[in-house]
């Protein structure tokens, strides 16, 4: 929000130079974003609009921070009331707790004085005419948005009510808005005059011929204004303030100041006034316990010191003895709507003391062992292994353009290609492979991340490989990876010609797809994996006896798969078998493309003795026999 440095200096004589002022405000109250010329951009937090989105409020802050006095024109004015010149009906006092109307007679509108214009311009507002400019100026000073109606253009009483469904209004700047039953309006017999708390209408606009004006200073329910502002997407100086919540006590303050200025600047005459109000909030009184404060902040302030900080901000200290002699009662100023509990007071004290000056102190706590989520450790281990295998890690967006059967959809996607939550990581990895293929001949990439479906949210990891015989590399990598994570029983079963299911201990962990001869992708469920990984390795005695290897070469018809051959060997139930490896695969016979030559190495080893050639031969013969009978292999 923009502030005028010269107005602040006028309200708090003695504040330091603009730069110094900005630095200190930054450390003790609000973030000062930039400061060009005479204007200052001070970021008012949403909880402080009621008191600080105004020059008077900022002046009070500055006075407390710099230990100075304020000079505000906030003396109450003697204003006539109850003359019947202005009539107001508030239909819903919850939506509009206070409505203050001042009725003034104007002789000549004339010109806006330069001192008002310059403040408006510092704050980014355009001067229009003296009446409107004074309304805006008073809003800048007091934080209370005001509106002036041409009283002669009104048709009967002012009514504060909810709009009729579909009711239309043309704003001052000639935009037409269609309202709903949830939008509050200021109206008369002929219809809506203004969108309450947001924007004035064209019909009762003040112009250079205006002779009688009604100044409105009202308070509106924060949530109502917030909703309307969001719905019609109209952010104005008024809606920005009301939608964050203003104090109902501000209304009279604003109306008084406005009438005072109209009188002073354009010689207007205040003829009548009216206040329509429901029950206003009572005084907020909070106990401040100095010990509790010191424990929460880590300080050792005295009771008086704390009380002085609060007093400087306009809080009243109630002199009444309390049971706890380190406690005192504090009355909150009416505009400080943000202060409702002890911790709010604690913040006021510590920020004036200076959070920056607080001494960092190591916590004194009992030692509790670190217990991190298992998935955190598993992900770390996965990454270590995969990087060792030459995989680089990518991060993709959680949103995709591709809809699957069980995709979740966003209500408000940011772009057409980011409408759905990703159901898999593979989709992203495929694009990564395509993108990087231009720069890299071979690729190994992985991603760890969450995927979402109508069923659940799941942690996954996916591997993408681009290199000759990609699928075979990927299979080897997956088994090594899973073994390294502690799995012993790893099964990859072909589901179709190009996809495998990866299982362990009967649990389906994921799938591997061969995309083409040189790229393949696998995706595994991290949550499922987490349930079956064995963290501890156990020592197995080293065998004292030598192993004996036998190679078997066979020729089989082309349509036989290696998986089938391995299954046959597996089914033989060999004694002492330690390992079966495919060591040669040849399918390029010049004369005959219908055959396939395979060589397996069988490694035998006993834990009890040195195996003899005869014993191994016996087992080996069983394999030969099984291969010949079951898949009609020709042993070479």
């Amino acid at each position, binding site marked *: 929000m923009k502030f005028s440095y010269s107005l602040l200096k006028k309200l708090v004589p003695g504040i330091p130079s603009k730069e110094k002022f900005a630095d200190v405000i930054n*450390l003790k*109250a*609000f*973030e000062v974003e930039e400061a060009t010329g005479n204007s200052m951009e001070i970021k008012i937090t*949403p*909880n402080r609009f009621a008191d600080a989105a105004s020059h008077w409020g900022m002046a009070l802050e500055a006075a407390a921070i710099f230990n100075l006095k304020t000079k505000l024109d906030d003396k109450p004015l003697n204003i006539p009331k109850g003359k019947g010149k202005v009539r107001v009906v508030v239909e819903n006092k919850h939506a509009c707790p206070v409505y203050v109307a001042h009725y003034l007679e104007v002789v000549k509108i004339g010109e806006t004085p330069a001192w008002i214009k310059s403040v408006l311009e510092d704050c980014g507002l355009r001067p229009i005419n003296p009446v409107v400019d004074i309304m805006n100026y008073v809003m800048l000073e007091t934080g209370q948005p005001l509106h002036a109606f041409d009283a002669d253009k009104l048709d009967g009483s002012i009514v504060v009510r909810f709009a009729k469904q579909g009711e239309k209004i043309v704003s001052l700047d000639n935009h037409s808005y269609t309202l709903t039953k949830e939008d509050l309006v200021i109206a008369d017999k002929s219809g809506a005059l203004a969108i309450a708390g947001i924007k004035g209408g064209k019909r009762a606009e003040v112009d250079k011929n205006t002779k009688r004006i009604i100044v409105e200073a009202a308070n509106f329910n*924060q949530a109502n204004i*917030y909703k309307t502002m969001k719905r019609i997407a109209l952010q104005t100086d008024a809606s920005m303030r009301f939608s*964050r919540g203003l104090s109902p006590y501000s209304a009279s303050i604003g109306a008084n100041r406005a009438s005072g200025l109209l009188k002073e600047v354009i010689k207007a005459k205040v003829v009548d006034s009216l206040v329509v109000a429901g029950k206003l909030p009572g005084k907020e009184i909070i106990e401040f316990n100095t010990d509790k404060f010191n*424990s*929460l*902040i*880590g300080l050792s302030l005295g009771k008086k010191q704390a009380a002085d900080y609060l007093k400087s901000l306009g809080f009243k200290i109630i002199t009444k003895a309390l049971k706890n002699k380190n406690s005192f009662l504090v009355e909150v100023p009416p505009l400080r709507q943000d202060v409702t509990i002890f*911790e*709010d007071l*604690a*913040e006021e004290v*510590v*920020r004036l003391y200076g*959070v*920056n000056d*607080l001494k*960092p*102190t*190591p*916590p004194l*706590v*009992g030692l*509790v062992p670190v*217990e*991190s*989520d298992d998935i*955190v450790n598993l992900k770390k281990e996965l990454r270590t292994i*995969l*990087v060792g295998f*030459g995989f680089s*890690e*990518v*991060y993709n*967006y*959680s*949103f995709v353009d591709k809809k699957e059967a069980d995709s*979740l959809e*966003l*209500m*408000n996607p*940011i772009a057409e290609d*980011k409408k759905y939550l990703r159901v898999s990581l593979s989709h*992203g990895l495929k*694009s*990564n492979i395509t993108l*990087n293929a231009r*720069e890299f001949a071979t*690729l190994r*990439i992985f991603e760890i*991340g969450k995927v*979402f479906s109508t069923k659940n*949210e799941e942690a996954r990891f996916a591997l993408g490989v681009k290199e000759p015989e990609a699928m075979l590399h990927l299979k080897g990598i997956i088994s090594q990876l899973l073994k390294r994570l502690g799995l012993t029983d790893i099964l990859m079963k072909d589901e179709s010609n190009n996809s495998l299911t990866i299982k362990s201990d009967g649990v389906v962990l994921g799938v591997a797809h061969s995309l083409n001869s040189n790229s393949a992708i696998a995706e595994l469920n991290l949550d499922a994996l987490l349930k079956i990984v064995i963290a501890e390795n156990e020592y197995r005695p080293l065998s004292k006896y*030598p192993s004996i290897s036998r190679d078997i070469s066979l020729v089989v018809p082309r349509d036989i798969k290696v998986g089938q051959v391995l299954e046959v060997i597996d089914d033989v139930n060999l004694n002492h078998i330690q390992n079966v490896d495919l060591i040669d695969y040849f399918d390029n016979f010049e004369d005959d493309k219908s055959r396939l030559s395979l060589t397996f190495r069988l490694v035998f080893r006993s834990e009890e003795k*040195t195996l003899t050639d005869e014993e191994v031969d016996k087992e080996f013969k069983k394999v030969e026999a099984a291969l010949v009978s079951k898949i009609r292999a020709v042993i070479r």
Partner: protein
Amino acid sequence: MHPLPSAYEADEQLLLFPAIQAFISTRILVVQPIFVKEYFNSVLLLNMNLKELQRKAFEEAENIEKKEHLESFRIKYLGRKGELTNILRSLKDLPVDERKSVGVDANKLKIELEQIVAFKEKEIGSLGEESVIDITRPGKKVNLGHLHPLTKIEEEIRNIFTSLNFSVVEGPELETEYFNFDALNIPASHPARDMWDTFWLKEGGKAKERRLMRTHTSPVQIRFMETHKPPFQIIVPGRVFRYEATDASHEINFYQLEGLMVGQNISLANFKFIVETFFKKLFGKNIEFRFRPSYFPFTEPSVEVDIKFPTKGRGDWLEVLGAGMVHPRVFESAHLNPRDIQGFAFGVGIDRLAMIKYKIPDIRLFYSGDLRFINQF
């Protein structure tokens, strides 16, 4: 000296020859004596001369390192007047029976020695003086993977915090409105909600609760506190989402780290110690700090932390972290009594820290999947 190749490194083709296997076995005599013993078992029938000759030849072959030595070896045993040739030549003087048995073994030895010569020739060829490789050539490229820079920095951050006795906890990315907002003292229609632009889920008509992509890691505060008793100190790294136009410093998904420390007397001064320690470990001891008051609905008092590097040219204050003392209503949401406990919470953007640390100018690079970028880390 050329290191002995283990049997498993040797050329696969050569391995198929039993002689080479035996030869290699003798070379790893110390490791696997059993192989050698076996081998000798199988040649027990050889007469002593033949056996001795074989032992001698194998031993010599072992030490051959130069081509000319290999040639003398060949001449010594297999040459026209070589020792084995002599034995073979003498066979004709033996009785038929012995000639047959010794002959078979002698011929077998001859084949073995020829294979050894061939093997050695190959081995020496790769290191022989005539064909010494240019060792100034660049080393062979080894492909090692690269961790994503966000992973790298997150790991560094985790290590710092675990060294400070914080546990690492995670939570769901798809959240309910309750955990993301209401439980954190951000009611509906509250202007504070505007601080977080939210991606909402399109739900079917009968959805119990509105769901959203979490806008911060703070919901995990509630989830954790609902199931744990203080004292505790945790960090929560994770992906969060904001509905906003992307540019060099804004992304629709990014990473955040939440911190939460709760106990009987955890104070704002304790927070300053923890957070300063963290940043000094991450960015260096000489870093400067600035603590400013701020506003978050779930902390009271609230503060923001800026850091500044001492080096010239990086002299601006950088806004890096928001924090505060946990709001009593947040404790109440998690069914804890705020009268018994107090503590601090903070949130920091991991992407931002990575951008500062690695001098990355554009947040969108993190999600580009471009390996030219990732492989720099």
